[in-house]
């Protein structure tokens, strides 16, 4: 059941990204280009997702076990640190250069796009670099 629900969540997430236009890097760049012709759509994607998420996560916080009986693992409250900010800066630069963030990268890999596979391979290499440096 865990695997079924994990798969279904990934699938609905991916379909949501496609419907929302987030899987189209040109549309994402249109949102990130404030000084050009600005496409505000992605702000509404976030608004829609957070509207549902507020309900889901409020409910999750009130429980210790999931519906399937697994422990609910919410990140512990922590302060800000340099890693969070510097990491986010690097991510933002990569996102701004390409219009692709991790979720859409995987969806685009699913369309068979060679460019997406190149991006995805480099992204996994970047994650591997983190493991090498930090573990």
């Amino acid at each position, binding site marked *: 059941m865990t695997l079924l629900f994990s798969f279904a969540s990934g699938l*609905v*997430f991916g379909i949501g990204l496609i419907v929302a236009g987030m899987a189209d890097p040109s549309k994402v760049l249109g949102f990130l280009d404030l000084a050009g012709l600005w496409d505000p759509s992605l702000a509404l994607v976030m608004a829609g997702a957070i509207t549902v998420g507020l309900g889901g996560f409020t409910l999750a916080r009130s429980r210790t076990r*999931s519906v399937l009986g697994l422990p609910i693992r919410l990140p512990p409250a922590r302060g800000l640190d340099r890693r969070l900010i510097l990491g986010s800066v690097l991510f933002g630069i990569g996102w*701004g250069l390409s219009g*692709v963030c991790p979720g859409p990268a*995987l969806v685009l890999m699913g369309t068979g796009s060679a*460019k*997406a596979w190149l991006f995805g391979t480099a992204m996994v290499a970047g994650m591997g670099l983190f493991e090498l440096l930090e573990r």
Partner: protein
Amino acid sequence: MLIDSLHFSPVSAVLGGLLIGLAASGLILFVGRIAGISGILGGLLRPRRGEVAWRVAFLGGLVTAPAVYQVVAALPDARIQVAWPVLPLAGLLVGVGTRYGAGCTSGHGVCGLSRLSRRSLAAVMTFMAAAFLTVFITRHVLGH
């Protein structure tokens, strides 16, 4: 600021957003995990017992989404138009950055903001600012 009314798609944006929120809510309520794509993928690089299968299943769902979508309707245009040489650098930055920053648009953006996490709000404001600035430089300063 000029609005791109030709490409602005409020209805599909909200609808897609609702689906994303539903997926993230479903994962936390049924599986007990945060739907942060970079964390789910990154966690596979240091595999631990009981931490592999659900991650592979979630990512499998994500990769399968275009094929399932196509059963119902034609896929909307979604091609990477950025030049080839940019992609390895951008991918590397996204990979390293999301792991150091402990999250991306999904983990910090959708889940973190839904949890009203201050840490995630700081991360989102930082990567959005960096992305806005990067696009400004590539499109308007370098005339990319």
